[in-house]
């Protein structure tokens, strides 16, 4: 078949398909709607990613786990073990999904994947920081405490979960004696191990910096009713 025949055959078949009526020209509104929908999905995914990122930052602050970073090598190890990796993986998956969505737009595919990835991460971090300025997470935490938060309620409740197995304790100081402080044991289960723990402060710490009634974050090794602390820090009233 020569080129001219091929051309005629293609043209003929195309017009046959068009005139048969099963191929219609899509309207401008279809393309505008599709682009608008894609942009909307991207904005929702970006907002979701920023929300998840801000939740990670909130949970680290709220649980007091950022203190572990100042408690030496053991603290760093415990921090890495307690870090919400699952939530971070969800966030990274959202960022990759957003990057994939962006590839259908010129401003997405004209840049390298690495550049787009970091641009998305930066945008997500900025929005996450802005979300962090709002009381949304605290409000959700309160709702979760009351059992009024569906879907993500459990996620919020886990923020103040007990991590004794990692040597992490939270409690209120009820007594200060010598180089020890006595704290209430708050693991939230209201069972037989509730009561108090006597915390021996590590060297370099002074009991004078603590006061009765104050809430503290303790990292150390647990005995039956004692804790040999590697680090102690003050919890703020909202933590």
């Amino acid at each position, binding site marked *: *078949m020569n*080129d001219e025949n*091929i*051309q005629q*055959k*293609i*043209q003929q*078949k*195309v*017009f046959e*398909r*068009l005139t048969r009526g099963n*191929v*219609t*020209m*899509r*309207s*401008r509104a*279809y*393309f505008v709607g599709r682009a608008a929908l894609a942009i909307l999905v991207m904005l929702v995914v970006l907002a979701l990613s920023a929300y998840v990122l801000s939740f990670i930052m909130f949970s680290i602050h709220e649980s007091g786990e950022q203190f572990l970073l100042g408690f030496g090598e053991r603290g760093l190890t415990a921090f890495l073990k307690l870090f919400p990796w699952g939530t971070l993986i969800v966030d990274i998956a959202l960022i990759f999904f957003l990057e994939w969505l962006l*590839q259908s737009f*010129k401003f997405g*595919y*004209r*840049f*390298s*994947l*690495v*550049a787009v990835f970091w641009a998305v991460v930066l945008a997500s971090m900025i929005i996450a920081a802005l979300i962090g300025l709002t009381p949304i997470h605290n409000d959700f935490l309160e709702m979760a405490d009351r059992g009024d938060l569906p879907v993500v309620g459990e996620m919020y409740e886990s923020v103040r979960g007990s991590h004794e197995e990692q040597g992490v304790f939270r409690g209120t100081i009820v007594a200060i004696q010598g180089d020890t402080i006595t704290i209430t044991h708050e693991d939230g289960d209201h069972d037989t191990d509730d009561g108090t723990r006597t915390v021996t402060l590590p060297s370099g710490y002074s009991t004078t910096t603590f006061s009765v009634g104050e809430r503290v974050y303790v990292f150390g090794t647990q005995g039956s009713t004692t804790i040999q602390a590697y680090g102690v820090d003050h919890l703020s009233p909202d933590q």
Partner: protein
Amino acid sequence: MTDEQLARLVQDGDHAPLAELMERYTPKLMRYGHRFLSSDDDIADVVQDVFVAAYQNIRDFDSTRRFSPWIYRIAHNAFVDTLRRQAKGPVYGLDFDRVVPHLIYEDPAEDEKEKEEMRVLLEKHLDELSPLYREIVDLYYFEDFKYEDIADILRVPIGTVGIRLSRARQQLKRAFEQIEL
């Protein structure tokens, strides 16, 4: 009439200019199709689908821009899809050139004589290039697209177009030197 003027008429519901566009683009797309498929019949079938898809989506075409990169983008997708179906798997592996940023290579000041020499060389040795480079070389040397157009057709950064063309030239040079030896 320019391609863009014809496309605008089709957008307004006139079928006749589509015939003119098909006349202009069938030989080009058939030639382009040979970079993906070997059978003329298979290529003709895909080209037919390309025109149908172009008609369906013509209102998505921005007539203030060039028509040829737009239809080549449709053709690229159609040929890659066909190839993927035939190969029952991905056509190209992971594209590392897309992952990291490259310096923006501008179109080199390659004069027409140099391009013609390269075309002669490529006619004989294009098949010796890896598939990743073959299409980009074809679009640049045979279809006469600029880097920016190729970036839009393949949906890759302009720097990636530049780096691949540069690597393709090196690969071709090596292949040519081996033959010479």
